[in-house]
């Protein structure tokens, strides 16, 4: 997983170090790989693997080739002399993956590759090569909200809620985020032309940012007060614009940051602590 070769290590060098057989992709041996991922657990390849890597595995199944393809790896190296089946080779060929077969066991193969370029001599990896679990784990989603589209209002908050529920965020917190996102979404539908919404989730915070293009809010402090509204009578007849939106957001979010430029747009950032 770790990337000891930021500039890439040509596959032919790995192949000769391991004295590996080239099973698929003889014409692509000058392609560089930027990291090596050594594992048999394919569900982890997608979670940890970085594009451009080579997969070193003892799992001789099509699952290995598909996972490598999905993780945008460049090569699969089967260890302990394992020879992949015809179907695996065919799949690799189609998807442009290089397949090698080496006789070493996993440790020997890792050690030999690490020896190339003398990386094994440096036991402390540089900053950007830190292993993934030390990195902060973050996931981002982006959505678009159409202004004036009352028919689809609530779609974004519903999607945000579904994502948080799937991850397993605590129900009460999901609810608070959903309420705030819904209120923010309604503000866009009522007052703006369109907005980009971003959901960012990491292990200590959920952040929802709604960045709209529209008329903006002249007095942000006033807008935060209960009952303050610029909704039209029609909007209010539909049950919107009671002036409770922003106060409701402030009640439910841990941190609210509202900035606005009249004539340009409004940026609403809501943060929620994850305990």
């Amino acid at each position: 997983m770790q990337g000891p070769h930021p500039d890439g290590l040509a596959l032919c060098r790995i192949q000769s170090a391991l004295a590996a057989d080239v099973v698929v992709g003889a014409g692509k041996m000058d392609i560089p790989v930027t990291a090596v991922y050594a594992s048999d657990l394919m569900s982890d390849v997608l979670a940890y693997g970085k594009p451009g890597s080579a997969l070193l595995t003892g799992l001789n199944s099509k699952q290995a080739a598909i996972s490598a393809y999905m993780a945008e790896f460049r090569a699969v190296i089967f260890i302990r002399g394992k020879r992949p089946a015809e179907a695996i080779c065919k799949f690799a060929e189609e998807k442009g993956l290089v397949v090698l077969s080496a006789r070493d066991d996993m440790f020997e193969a890792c050690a030999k590759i690490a020896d190339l370029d003398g990386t094994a001599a440096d036991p402390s990896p540089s900053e950007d090569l830190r292993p993934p679990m030390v990195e902060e784990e973050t996931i981002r989603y982006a959505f678009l909200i159409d202004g004036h589209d009352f028919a689809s209002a609530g779609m974004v908050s519903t999607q945000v809620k579904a994502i948080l529920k799937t991850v397993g965020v605590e129900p009460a917190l999901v609810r608070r985020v959903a309420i705030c996102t819904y209120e923010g979404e309604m503000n866009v539908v009522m007052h703006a032309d369109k907005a980009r919404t971003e959901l960012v989730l990491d292990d200590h915070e959920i952040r929802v940012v709604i960045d709209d293009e529209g008329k903006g809010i002249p007095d942000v402090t006033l807008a935060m007060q209960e009952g303050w509204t610029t909704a039209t009578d029609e909007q209010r007849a539909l049950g919107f614009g009671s002036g409770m939106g922003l106060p409701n957001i402030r009640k439910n979010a841990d941190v609210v940051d509202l900035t606005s430029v009249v004539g340009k747009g409004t940026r609403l950032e809501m943060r929620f602590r994850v305990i």
Partner: protein
Amino acid sequence: MEPEPGYYHAFSINEDLCKGHSRCLRKCPTEALRLRRGRIAMISERCIDCGECLLACPEGVFAPICDSMEDVKKFRHKVVVPSPVLYAQFGASVQPSSIRQALLNTGFDEVAETFYNSRALGVVFRQYIQENRGVRPLISTYCPAVVRLIQVKYPNLVENLMPINIPREITAMEARQGAVHRTGLPPEAVGVFYIAACPSIVVSVKQPAESGTSRFDGVLSLRNLYNALLPDVLALEKAADARAPKESFFFGMGWSWMGQIGQAVGAGKCLSVAGLDHVVKIFDDIESSKLRHIDFLEALACMQGCVGGAFAVENPYVARANIIHLQQQYGQDREVDTEAILQRYRAGHYAMDLPIKPRPTRMLDIDLPTSIKRMKQKERVFAKLPQKDCGLCGAPTCEAFARDCALGEADLTDCVFFSEEAVHVRTR
């Protein structure tokens, strides 16, 4: 993490009958079903026993587990409480007395009705709504599948569930007390059975959502009983004197199709919704606090309400027409004694035994950082999938499949777009 409690389900799965149509996968509202290696598998804690799979499967893979007349005969005094839906199954002109007599002929000693309690609960609901101004909307607990949907997918809405008991449970309690009083038998010698129009009722009796104990001793399926009742009902109808005075039978609103509970409540803003697709939309809105102005929500899992239950025989629209006829004929009754009902309400007669709690939610992995990683992995798989939701991998959607892969519960090789072998397994 707590050990996962076992969940009782009202049907058995006969894998040998499964031809792999995968219709059930698509119909399941909580994505609880999978086809793994050509065999149907159920994720137990997700199943809410709504019965959609039973209705969708042309092969009868899902067999409801109900009690039978043999179970009824174990008791010395046998009381039956029919679902209101039963009275709508034999045509509009059939008299309720014929159906009740047919029930007695099958071996019951007594027929107890839910209708008075339904009417009383209208008064109770109204009172509860007035007295409790906090949470809105309050949600009816009449439909067990909806209650379970909330426990599984909308844990936040558990606090919206109205903590009032349901008509059939109250009727069962009163019927047992009455029978004990009249016959002098000990309570355990009296068997009280419900005739259900859907499998979720069976589960609500065997494993109540509030984890208390049901007042029923068992549940019979309307569908199973129908064939036994039909010849008797027809014979009794034939023999009946058309000039006889109208029998004294009270049907009331007969809670069995959408809108009846809301109508019984009367006051305040009520909303009625039926069909799980629609219920889910309404629940999403409530979670975004969109429906704060609604006082009471009647939510039923089946299309049109209980008349659309998986154990119903008659087409729900015909049944609905029959219900309207019954309401016209037997809907009126003497004045309601509101004061007596409220007195019983204050004495706790209508209260639910225990509060309903959400089912524990499961993270994608053991902790949040790892769950986020799994989620990323899911999105990565999903992005590369064909996104045709063909279902051939055995998961209902590409999205569900990506999630299964991230959890290590499915193999990427199960996707037919990646491996032809998967096609052979699926069409075995």
